[in-house]
């Protein structure tokens, strides 16, 4: 059975292993190229990152009108939280999920999966471009938010941003696996958005929400950005670490269970 139906067999490693590896990389590159071409030409998807960057930039100007362009730390934190959380959630879930749903709609997913692409190659190829995009937008939002760059702990920021973006992409794959079409993908994304986007964004307004936010991977990211905005040093707690890796692991497991059951597309 092929990977479309979730019953992936191990690729025979006959012949020269080097050539086999090169072949696998070619396939991975081809899937990533297809995804890049599809996503970058889908205005419905590509409007998201532009909106996030635009919104943060415009809000920064508007909030700063009365204070000569300088924002108070609280507002910087709010801006950064909204920008990064929207990017991670709205873009991660929707970009990955919708692009798979689009392939189902146009029947190209079946074509791709009957062209010797493995489930793993499709998985990695599908999240590669969105992952890079999420990371890039996170950095752009960080730059334009007005946070002094000398207080940014670059390595922890990169690490947290990477794990969070990856988790978001895996959740997007779950959305894509469950969705029948693009409309359906958006609909399935909403519960994820409500939890992973709204709770951290409004975490500052309620103690209870703030506590819950601490148990969400997006909450760990906003916790970090709040520290940055307040000019405090961010130290990753064991709980943050457990939440980041725990939720990444759970997402991967849920994806694997769904994939094993029906593959990328239910017959």
């Amino acid at each position, binding site marked *: *059975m*092929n*990977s*479309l*139906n979730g019953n*992936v*067999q*191990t*690729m*025979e490693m006959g012949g020269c292993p080097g050539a086999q590896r090169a*072949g696998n990389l*070619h*396939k991975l*590159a*081809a*899937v990533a*190229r*297809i995804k890049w*071409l*599809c996503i970058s*030409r*889908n205005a419905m998807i590509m409007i998201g990152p532009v909106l996030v960057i635009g919104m943060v930039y415009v809000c920064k100007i508007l909030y700063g009108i009365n204070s000569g362009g300088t924002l108070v730390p609280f507002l910087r934190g709010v801006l950064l939280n909204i920008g990064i959380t929207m990017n991670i959630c709205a873009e991660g879930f929707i970009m990955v999920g919708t692009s798979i749903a689009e*392939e189902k709609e*146009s*029947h*190209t*997913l*079946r*074509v791709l999966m*009957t*062209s*010797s*692409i*493995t489930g793993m190659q499709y998985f990695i190829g599908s999240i590669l471009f969105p992952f890079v995009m999420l990371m890039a937008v996170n950095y752009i939002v960080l730059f334009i938010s007005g946070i002094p760059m000398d207080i940014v702990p670059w390595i922890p920021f990169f690490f947290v941003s990477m794990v969070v973006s990856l988790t978001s992409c895996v959740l997007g794959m779950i959305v894509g696996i469950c969705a029948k079409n693009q409309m359906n993908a958006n609909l399935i994304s909403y519960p994820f958005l409500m939890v992973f986007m709204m709770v951290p964004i409004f975490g500052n307004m309620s103690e209870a929400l703030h506590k819950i936010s601490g148990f969400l991977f997006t909450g760990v990211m906003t916790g970090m950005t709040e520290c940055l905005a307040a000019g405090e040093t961010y130290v990753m707690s064991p709980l943050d670490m457990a939440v980041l890796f725990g939720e990444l692991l759970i997402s991967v497991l849920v994806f694997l269970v769904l994939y094993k059951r029906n593959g990328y597309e239910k*017959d």
Partner: protein
Amino acid sequence: MEQNVLLSLSHISKRFKTEQALKDINMTLHQGEILGFLGPSGAGKTTTIKIITGQLRQTSGEARLLGTDSSNIDESIYEKIGVVSDNSGIYKKMTVWQNLYVFAGIWQVSRERVEKVLTQVGLGEHRNKPAGKLSKGQTQRLVLARAVLHKPRVLFLDEPTSGLDPSTAVAIHRMLLELKEEGMAIFLTTHNMEEAAKLCDKVALLHDGEIVEFGSPQEICLKHNRNKKYSVLLEGDRELVLAQNPENVRKIAGWMERDEIMRIHSCEPTLETVFLEVTGKDLNV
């Protein structure tokens, strides 16, 4: 395994929840052969392709594709086969060239090969056109081009000319015959009997998931030619269909002696009439 047998189905049955989709299907496909799978919609044609290509698992029986059991095939088999399904999609926002080139990347096919296939299917001048703007015939040719890009040993075509204009259908037929000449084995499903008779070396007539006839189109037609008849066109545009019996033979001999016959030929049943006779149903339903 018999020499040159690329595909064999042995006692294949498939049952969905309440419906028996396929019953005891047996057949073989050899290298350089076109096998037609004929039947009306819902007869089980697409299900058969899905079982052979590992997209669906049979309830019982064995399907072997290129020597491998279909229920155990992995993705590498798709490097040796091409599949054109009834709803094979194209990337509409990509150009014709990009649609082929991304798959060339998967199969590691050279640019020259992409160019050659593009020219072969007559889409060379449309290379930079977004695939979504192609006509139905051009889209079908693009799908076919993609399926043969990596020179598969077996090509599966599910209703390849369905809904196409006659000239595009003829162009596709020509291309299939060329591929056959190159040694490719083609498994073709269709409900177009003329197409099957013209292209196929062997056909299987499928009815309610069961093969009711199997053989070359000529063999099948001759087998069902029980009531032999002759069509005779006489001078004065008088056309007659006469059953073969001593009286009519004498009549024909007389017309021949008097040189009154303009045209005469035997009337064998067509695949369509055979199907109707065997199943009591029309193929075009």
